[in-house]
């Protein structure tokens, strides 16, 4: 092996990589928030009494969970213009990741909601809480609290998966790394650095989500 490593051009391009980090953070955070919200809608459909709604939700969830996210991204970015919806790379990326995240979030949150015993809801009703309040305080909050770790790992996976929206030229970290690669040809150094950045990002997300969880779920349980 007689390859001389040269990280200088990689580090010299730090403003570009920083912009990429911000892009990754922006796209994955938005997809997380939208994905969780849409996921709750699908979860409600999945658990509703109507057979049609349930079938639709199951169909959607299984379709998303059994196809690669890359194909979903391509479908949204290249396929949607055929039906008149033209999106930029970043919009397509956020939409595809939201749709993807929703299916997983729906199943995770459903697990949490099913862990709430009917007695809890009855108790809420006996205390005279509004239906909305029962959903909010008695069902959702404890349900999401119960599955929060699983939800967090799904979010982190989402952030890592955002690397492949570079293929539809959404300007996130991997996209800039590829640009840098074509400018400097320091492939190995770039992808090593990229790996380290993602490792730090996933630790950061893990810590940040942990803090959010501790603040939001810090009510007494007993």
């Amino acid at each position, binding site marked *: *092996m007689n390859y001389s490593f040269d990280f200088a051009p990689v580090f010299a391009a730090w403003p570009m990589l920083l912009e990429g980090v911000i892009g990754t953070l922006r796209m994955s955070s938005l997809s997380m928030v939208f994905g969780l919200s849409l996921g709750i809608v699908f979860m409600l459909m999945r658990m509703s009494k109507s057979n049609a709604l349930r079938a639709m939700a199951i169909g959607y969830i299984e*379709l998303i969970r059994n196809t690669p996210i890359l*194909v979903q991204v391509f*479908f949204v970015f290249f396929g949607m213009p055929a039906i008149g919806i033209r999106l930029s790379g970043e919009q397509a990326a956020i939409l595809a990741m939201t749709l993807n995240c929703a299916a997983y979030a729906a199943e995770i949150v459903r697990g949490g909601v099913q862990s709430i015993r009917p007695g809890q809801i009855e108790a809420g009703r006996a205390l005279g809480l509004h239906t909305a309040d029962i959903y909010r305080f008695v069902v959702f909050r404890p349900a999401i609290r119960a599955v929060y770790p699983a939800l967090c790992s799904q979010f982190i996976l989402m952030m*890592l998966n955002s690397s492949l929206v570079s293929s539809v030229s959404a300007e996130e970290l991997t996209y800039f790394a590829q640009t840098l690669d074509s400018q400097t040809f320091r492939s190995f150094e770039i*992808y090593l650095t990229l790996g380290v950045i*993602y490792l730090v990002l996933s630790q950061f997300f893990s810590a940040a989500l942990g803090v959010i969880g501790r603040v939001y779920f810090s009510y007494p349980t007993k």
Partner: protein
Amino acid sequence: MIRQFGWGEFLFLLEGARWTVVLTLLAFTFGGALGLGVALGRTSKWRLLRILMATYIQIFQGTPLLVQLFFVYFGLPLLGLKVDVWVALTIGLSLHTSAFLGEIWRGSIQAVPDGQSEAARALGIGYVHRMVDVVLPQAFRIGLPATISFLVNLIKGTALAALLGLTELTRSGQLMANITFEPLQVYGAVALVYFFICLPLTFSSARIERRLNADR
């Protein structure tokens, strides 16, 4: 003249799907073998080995698969190895698989009640037989649903091979979309092929999981 997306074009996608299946099988075989080593290392009595394996797993779980594949693809030539893209992909996917299966199987090994290996030790059974005959068969049962779920993830993961230029299912779809100018139908068809490969696995995983829970 622009080609229409018809039956012949669909068969072209299926031909691409062969690579998807081959890559999955190769990565699952090699990754599984390596993953067993990772799982045993992660549950060994030597602290250093445990820490080493935990770090290995953390690295693969904390970086995107795409970056891992690029890293292997560009890293192998530095070691003086000139390999085809499918070999690089097999190596990359196998390493990825080994970390994830290692972590799944670590959990399964630890889920086997301590009494089992204690009893084996009391009978004077050595490490190899204790693992092969007592702990691993039980761990295999516990870990089966999660292993199949990971297999589904691996099949979906092979789609990234398209970005490195291997003509598997997704790349065939890209080529076909460029020829026919019907991306909606083509990517829809690609998604359906993946769907029908993965769905039976997802269902069997869910069924096995229900059956295991029913025993309890």
